[in-house]
């Protein structure tokens, strides 16, 4: 396997997995079903603060198919699907805006996979069907692997956790939280069940109707020794970061493809001035520009995934390029998807806002396009004020 593989390493197995996902989600989560789940009542989420519903029955089916174990090594009971395979599957997840803890579980798995032997039992639990999410972000929303304000205090042969973790994704859907915590000079990754004593989740009121998000408060949460998955947590997170970026980029690409196809369909059918509006270049050309941006992101996505599979040292750069391009394509397609639908696109009854909001949320996670480019500039040009040849 090489990062230069002509087909990105995307072979029949990966195609089959992607096509199964497309069929399954197409059957069980058509957009009308999604709407009924998450947007039946506009006041529910935005006025009364209720968390949008999600299809736990469908999730159980996905778990039964082994989706929680996609990124878990085979020795731990997972299927160790290649990153290009996960990218293909997550594109379908994005295309259907699936509310689920899948993306969070994958991101937590990447971190645990990088954490070493102590994480093995937790990976086995995930492969057996447990969902998980990362609690690694501080109050400022810093997207640095080392930023976390949870403190670990020694207690017996384990520790106890005190403090806050912010912007925890899909927190109310996840069985386990993978918490980044400081213990003196050490950075730990601790695994905490969502219902652990001393852990409370405060729901964030977010605009995305297909996710949930919370602030996690740790008031002396007991962590036994076997729940300390790593004592080099920042290093584990750093090596897992490219895979997380690729996963989020894949979701954005899938959302973008839905936005492109749905808006093109509208432009083919909606008539004004006795013609379908897609006849007019003010409509046609922006749709093409959205396609160009999306295709760039998709190509960079599979390149980055292939680099990760090959262990190529370029993977961190490739992954940031993919997330930057996917975030920008997502922003552009979201914008045009509402605008080109005209008045109806501005209403709750039109589906475009569901994807608009999921994309907007995803653009921010782990840093938007500008954020990634700033990191890339350090890698490609050198740090600001650095030595000049």
């Amino acid at each position: 396997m090489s990062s230069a593989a002509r087909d990105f390493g995307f072979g029949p197995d990966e195609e089959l997995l992607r096509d199964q996902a497309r069929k399954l989600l197409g059957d069980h989560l058509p957009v009308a079903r999604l709407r009924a789940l998450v947007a039946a009542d506009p006041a529910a989420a935005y006025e009364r603060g209720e968390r949008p519903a999600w299809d736990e029955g469908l999730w159980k089916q996905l778990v039964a198919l082994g989706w929680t174990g996609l990124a878990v090594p085979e020795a731990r009971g997972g299927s160790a699907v290649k990153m290009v395979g996960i990218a293909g599957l997550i594109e379908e997840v994005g295309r259907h805006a699936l509310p689920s803890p899948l993306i969070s579980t994958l991101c937590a798995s990447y971190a645990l996979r990088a954490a070493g032997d102590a994480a093995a039992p937790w990976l086995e639990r995930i492969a057996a069907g447990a969902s998980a999410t990362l609690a690694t972000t501080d109050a400022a929303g810093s997207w640095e692997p080392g930023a976390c304000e949870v403190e670990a205090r020694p207690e017996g042969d384990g520790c106890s956790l005190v403090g806050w973790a912010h912007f925890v994704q899909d927190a109310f859907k996840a069985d386990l939280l993978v918490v980044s915590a400081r213990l003196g000079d050490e950075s730990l990754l601790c695994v905490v069940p969502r219902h652990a004593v001393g852990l409370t989740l405060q729901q964030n009121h977010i605009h995305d109707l297909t996710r949930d998000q919370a602030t996690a408060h740790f008031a002396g949460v007991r962590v036994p020794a076997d729940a300390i998955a790593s004592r080099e947590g920042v290093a584990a997170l750093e090596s897992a970061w490219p895979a997380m970026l690729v996963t989020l980029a894949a979701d954005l690409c899938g959302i973008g493809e839905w936005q492109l196809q749905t808006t093109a369909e509208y432009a083919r059918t909606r008539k004004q001035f006795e013609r379908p509006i897609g006849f007019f270049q003010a409509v046609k050309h922006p749709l093409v520009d959205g396609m160009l941006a999306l295709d760039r992101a998709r190509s960079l996505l599979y390149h980055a995934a292939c680099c990760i599979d090959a262990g190529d040292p370029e993977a961190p750069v490739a992954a940031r390029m993919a997330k930057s391009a996917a975030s920008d394509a997502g922003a552009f397609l979201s914008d045009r998807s509402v605008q080109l639908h005209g008045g109806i696109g501005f209403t709750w009854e039109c589906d475009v806002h569901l994807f608009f909001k999921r994309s907007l949320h995803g653009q921010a996670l782990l840093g938007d396009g500008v954020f990634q480019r700033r990191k890339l500039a350090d890698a490609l040009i050198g740090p600001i004020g650095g030595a000049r040849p």
Partner: protein
Amino acid sequence: MSEPTLRPEQREFQEYARRWLAENAPPAPKFRLPLSAIEVMTVAQRDYLQDWQRRCYEAGLVGCDYPTAYGGGGHEGFQRLANLEMSRARVPFLINLVGLNMAAPTILVHGSEEQKRRFIPGALRGDEIWCQGFSEPGAGSDMANQQTSAERRGDGWVVNGHKVWTSLGHFAKWMILLARTSREHKHDGLSYFLCPIEGHAGVTVRPLVKITGESGFNEVLFEDVEIPDSLRLGSVGQGWAVAMTTLTYERGAGESAGGGGGDGAGPIARLVALARRSRRGGACAADDPITRDAIVAEAIAAEGLRQNMRRARVPALCDHPLRLPLQQKLLSTELFQRCARLGVEIAGAAGTLYKLDAAAPDAGHWPLAYLNSYGGTIAAGTNEIQRNILGERVLGLPKTK
């Protein structure tokens, strides 16, 4: 650097090409070489470049995938590698751009056996330079609105009309010519000819001067120009379909007969180097966050273009077979244009200096490249037309016309 999926003979060929180019790269000429084949102005430039193409051809780096009967190498999957190695070696470009990328592939698809044997070898070797006669004063984006006529007279045709934007016309022996053979039908009234140019009675080639101050393209006038019927390519009335084959190759969707020239990473490295030695607001331009963002945005676009070309060869990752190939011309010309303009911006006050000024950064490359970039975004179907084609053929939107 070699791809793992290559066949052994491809790998061997790639190594041979790399070695040959390292050993045989020509010494720099005493005069300035233009950026590309469409800016070749002087006889000295032509002779130098024609000699280089002949040497590349004789070394087996041009026309590698063409049948041996037509002067090719008879291989498969070699040309792409030769092109890649020519780009990497930064050797001069091949002058017979129209011959290699448009005339030869179109003749291979639509030509008679006799036409293939007669014309392809000279195009590959570069002995016979070709130009393209599609555009007219009234037929630009609306290419089917051809007014140049070819009328039957005896066993041949008589051509009258006016072609414009004819790159290399002043050095061309031959032109691929689209002409109207019937006024009854717009598209179906066109036919495609291989028309002699140099020294041919009734043909006048006049240089046009571009916004850069350079010539390199021309207008070509036809006054009762006689050509035999044996120089017709394809059937009478089928010229539009033949021209579409040419455009497919011109826009980069097909594998060409020979390449060279720039690779996507080149301009990015040059922009970074320029920023490092330019000043902006009293500090190094490479430390300016907005300049950094702009350079990285283009680095992402350049990498995206390379990965698009790779993904286009993976059917499982392409929803529509034309979706990526039809983007190529549009994306590459706009990337080139944005990079050139960014270079002018980064140079700041020195961005005002043009090619004669000794203090001009990179010998005036940035403003010259920026001005020239409009050739790319306008030629071969303007990028607005490319957006129409993508919208119509890939997204299924109604045809603008």
